[in-house]
C-alpha cells in the first residue's frame, strides 16, 4: 500500500479527533441559540471528510456523488417545512 495513502488516512483521522474535541468543548461554552448550529456544523464537516476521503467519493463520477448527497438534501426539505409549522404555530 502506498505510504502516502496511509499517511493521508491517518491525517484525516487526527483531523476528525480534533473536530470531536472541538464540538465537545464548544458544548461547554454559553453559545445559547447558536449551540445546535455549531455542533451540527462540526458534525457536517466530519461527515464530509469521511464521505470525501474514506468513502473515496473523490474518484467517483458526478452521478454517484449526487446519490450520496441526495438524501441529505431531501432531509432538509423535511426539517425546514416541519419547523416552519412548529415555530409559527403559537401565533394563531
Amino acid at each position: 500500500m502506498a505510504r502516502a495513502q496511509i499517511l493521508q488516512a491517518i491525517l484525516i483521522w487526527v483531523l476528525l479527533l480534533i473536530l470531536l474535541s472541538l464540538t465537545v468543548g464548544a458544548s461547554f461554552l454559553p453559545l445559547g441559540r447558536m449551540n445546535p448550529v455549531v455542533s451540527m456544523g462540526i458534525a457536517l464537516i466530519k461527515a464530509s471528510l469521511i464521505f470525501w476521503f474514506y468513502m473515496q467519493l473523490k474518484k467517483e463520477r458526478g452521478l454517484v456523488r449526487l446519490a450520496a448527497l441526495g438524501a441529505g438534501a431531501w432531509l432538509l426539505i423535511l426539517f425546514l417545512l416541519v419547523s416552519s409549522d412548529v415555530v409559527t404555530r403559537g401565533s394563531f
Partner: protein
Amino acid sequence: MTQGSPVHEPYTEASQQHEANMLGMFIFLGTEIMLFGGLFAAIMVYRIEHREQLIEASKRLYLWIGTANTVILLTSSLLVALAVQASRAGSRRVGATLLVASACMGVGFLGLKGIEYAKEWQEGLLPLTGVRHAFSGPVQELFMGLYLAATGLHAVHLTIGIALMVGLSWRVGRGSLRLPQKALTVELCGLYWHLVDIIWIFLFPALYLVR
C-alpha cells in the same frame, strides 16, 4: 479501478458494472440516511418545543461514554479505510487483520453502550415498560425515549456492520475472496461501515450535546 474483476450478466463491460454497484450502494446508503432522518426530525421538533427541559435531560446522559464511543467509531473508520486500501493492493493478511480490528472496535462500542444502558437502567432513566421509572419530569421521559430509539436503531445497524466485517475478514484471511479482483466487496462493506459511523457523528451531538 480493479482490473480483471469478472463481468457477469447483464453487464457488457467492467466500468459499467463498477458504476452500477457503486450507484446501487450509495442509493442504499441514502435510504439509511432517510430512515434515521425521521428520528432526527423528531429530535429537532422536540428541541424547538421543549428547549430548556431537553437541555436538562441531555445533561443527565453520560457524556464521557458518548465521547469515548465516538473516538472508537472514528478510529474504526480509519481501520476500515486502510483495510480497503490493503485489499486493493492485494495484501490479504494486512487486510484481514485490519477488518478484524475494526470489528473489535465495533464490539467495544457495543460494550460501552451496554454499560451506559445498564447505568441508565439502574437510575430508572430507560422508558421501557416494566422497568423502574425515575424521571424528573414527563419531557425527560420523552427525551430518553428518543435517545433509546435512536441509539438502539444505530446499535442494530452497527451489529450488522460487525457481522459483515467478521465474515469479510474470514473470507479475505482464508483467501476465498480473491484480492485484488474482488476488492470491490470489501469496498462496499466499508461504505456501509462508514455510513454507520456518519450516523453516529450526527447522533452524538443531537443527543449528548443539547445545550
